[in-house]
């Protein structure tokens, strides 16, 4: 993304960390609280009304496990893309980035399919507290994935301008990677605390 760090420093960072990377870490710290609040809301209501809604017949563990696996693999490709950019291998960066984008889109497709199925089965935003918390949490995560996909698409096309190289852009790709990995980790928590927990 933008390059404010170079704007402004004299090649000197008190913490030896790039400004932009530090900003992304701070954002992720804030985002932890963001998702934490929503996950807590879901779990609190689930505990309050254990009998109100039984999603075990609705949830398709096969589908969600598949999309979880896809998201995990996209993180792997993201790591390869970061590594490629560090080496300045722009072709490899593009190959891996397009893979991440593709996998991200598969994940989003699964989520859209899942939501459609659930709504047809009668679980909507207004279905008690379960519907509200479930859709808001997974939907917000989906928006995070969508923003990540959009970000990577922008980077993918930007790489054709010839302005990306190991020296300048490695840190930018790394930051996008931090974001992507974080969104992936959050999904693993959501998959455990919202989906798997129902089958215990």
């Amino acid at each position, binding site marked *: 993304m933008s390059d404010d760090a*170079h*704007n402004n420093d004299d090649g*000197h960072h*008190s913490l030896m960390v790039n400004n932009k990377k530090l900003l992304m870490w701070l954002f992720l710290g804030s985002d932890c609280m963001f998702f934490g*609040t929503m996950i807590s*809301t879901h779990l609190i209501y689930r505990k309050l009304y254990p009998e109100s809604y039984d999603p075990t017949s609705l949830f398709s563990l096969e589908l969600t496990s598949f999309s979880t696996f896809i998201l995990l693999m996209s993180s792997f490709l993201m790591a390869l893309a970061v590594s490629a950019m560090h080496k300045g291998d722009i072709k490899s960066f593009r190959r891996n980035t397009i893979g991440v984008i593709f996998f991200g889109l598969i994940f989003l497709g699964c989520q859209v399919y899942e939501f459609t199925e659930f709504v047809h089965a009668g679980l909507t935003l207004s279905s008690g507290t379960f*519907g*509200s918390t479930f859709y808001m949490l997974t939907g917000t995560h989906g928006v995070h994935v969508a923003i990540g996909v959009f970000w990577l698409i922008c980077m993918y096309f930007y790489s054709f301008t010839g302005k990306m190289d190991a020296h300048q852009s490695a840190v930018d790709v790394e930051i996008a990677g931090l974001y992507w990995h974080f969104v992936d980790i959050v999904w693993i928590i959501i998959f455990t605390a919202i989906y798997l927990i129902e089958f215990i």
Partner: protein
Amino acid sequence: MSSTLTDTPTSSTTHDHALKPETSNLGFMRPDHSKSVLIDWLTTVDHKKIGIMYGAIALFFLLIGGIEALIIRAQLAVPENDLVSAQRYNQLFTMHGTTMIFLAIMPLNAAFFNFLVPLQIGARDVAFPRLNSFSLWTFVAGALVLNFSWLMQAFSELGWFTASGPTAGMDDFVPGMGWFGYAPLTERQFTGAGTDFWILGLQILGIASLGAAMNFVATILNMRAPGMKMMRLPVFTWMTLVVSLLIIFAFPAITIALGQLMFDRMFDTNFFQVAEGGQPILWQHLFWIFGHPEVYILVLPAMGIVSEVLPTFSKKPLFGYPIVVFSGAVIGFLGFAVWSHHMFTTGLGKVATAAFSLLTMAIAVPTGVKIFNWIGTLWGGRVRFDAPMIFSIGFIWMFMMGGFSGIMHSAAPADAQQQDSYFVIAHFHYVAIGGILLASISGIYFWLPKIVGKMWTGNLSTWVAIFTTVGLNVTFFPMHFLGLIGMPRRTHTYLSGFGWDGYNMVCSIGAFILAFGVLLFVIDIILCMTKGKPAGNDPWDARTLEWATTSPPQHYNFGRTPIIPARDALWEHKHGPENRNINFEADDGHGIHMPSQSWMPVLASFGFAPLGLGLCLMQVGIPYMGYVAIAGLFTIALGIILWAVEGPGGYHLHPEEDKI
């Protein structure tokens, strides 16, 4: 390099070729060095200009919030008064609280952060100058959305407009459910579009605060001049760091709570819908998990200001610097562990109540430590009673009063008696006015000569001190009694014969005395800016790095990066041993790299206004407002993308040697 850092003559600066506006990666001309003052200030990335704008807007909203308070006090002056209706009264106290917290104190703190922090740590600017501009203008958009509600209310009163659509039949367009917006009062069945303005306004203000907070943490951690170790940072900068971390970790809770409420109102979810199993108590928890750290977000900068003023006017180092810093951090940390003391009467259970009670009492310890350290700073010093000092000493005493009643609240059984009574009002106004406002006035008197380069004159400041302090005590001290004899807060009127009449009259008179004091203060600021004499670079013989620059500081702050030898660097430089002089990094021939100004953050921020207003006006049934909201969203996205693509730009400056 001259031996003293002060009183360097001013002369024109030589620039290199890059002074002409350069084109960005997008092919647009960058708005650097614009002849138009308006464009220059709109697109500025200079932390000092951004700070000044924050300050000006904050003072404006301080007056707006003050007027709302005066109407409240006029209404309550006599029993069974009908100056305003019950509904209007609710709207006034809601907007008074929301305005003072989010549109007056927080931006005033942001003004201090912006102007001072980069100077105090010896940096060229904040870490992300364009993000800083984005925060400022997003804050403006949020303030606009929130206060647009008054306009809608006026249209409604004039009979020009009636709500249809989701809030059909409701004529409350200004939020009127209290600044903490307790569910389920905020649900669609009970309140009209006012709540939507409140939700969207706060949500946008939250984005502005988060952006600014992350920026300041990155700045303080990463942009310090060489030698400026963490334990050499001025206490004000330390408190900025703590407050920024509090914002980063506390604001997500309110963001989600507001989001849930918005979903309840717009998309029929059931987060707080009691009939469908929603739990209003969840709102209280989420709100106060944010709300209590927010209290420290408001007050810690005030403590930082006082920790700068007292040593300067006592000619002594701050007594126990490490423990003052540590106490500030502990207050911030404990701030996350006491939220339920706002909810003692909700029936949390014995264990939870006892735990939160104890933790609340524990916060008094670091606060007390700070107060003793401030007194220790005064002890044996050569105390000078200039205006900043008068207000800082006033802060210690008045803030302590607020602290005492706070300790009383921490005892859950006592709190059960005081809950929702005027005693609580007395408590937090002693903290907010006696603490935060007095410290902010102290800070403005202290730094105004640096900010505008002119010294305030005359003894108007003494009168400001007298009127604000007397007004504050006359207004709020009787409220302790009012609360204890049973007057509930948030009632628009009361019957005669409860023994409340006299107290209320006194409170109302006090409010006008206080308001007169604030008015005198604003006049004093204007007088200083118009008629003030040149202040000189270091009028207070001060201790920290910002006083080593010219008054007002050059837009590049420091000609060369200073190398910091010690805590209280400037003081050591002026009065300390030879080996503690401030040195400067050698000129590397490149000059100073200045960031370019930019339209893009302004464009992105501007998008928040149609987004917020569109969503609100959709709720009152105005057609096509959904499209306006979507247009706003696209504007934000467009602004951010162009911002990313345009590149940071920048140009080099070569200030003349004597201006460094």
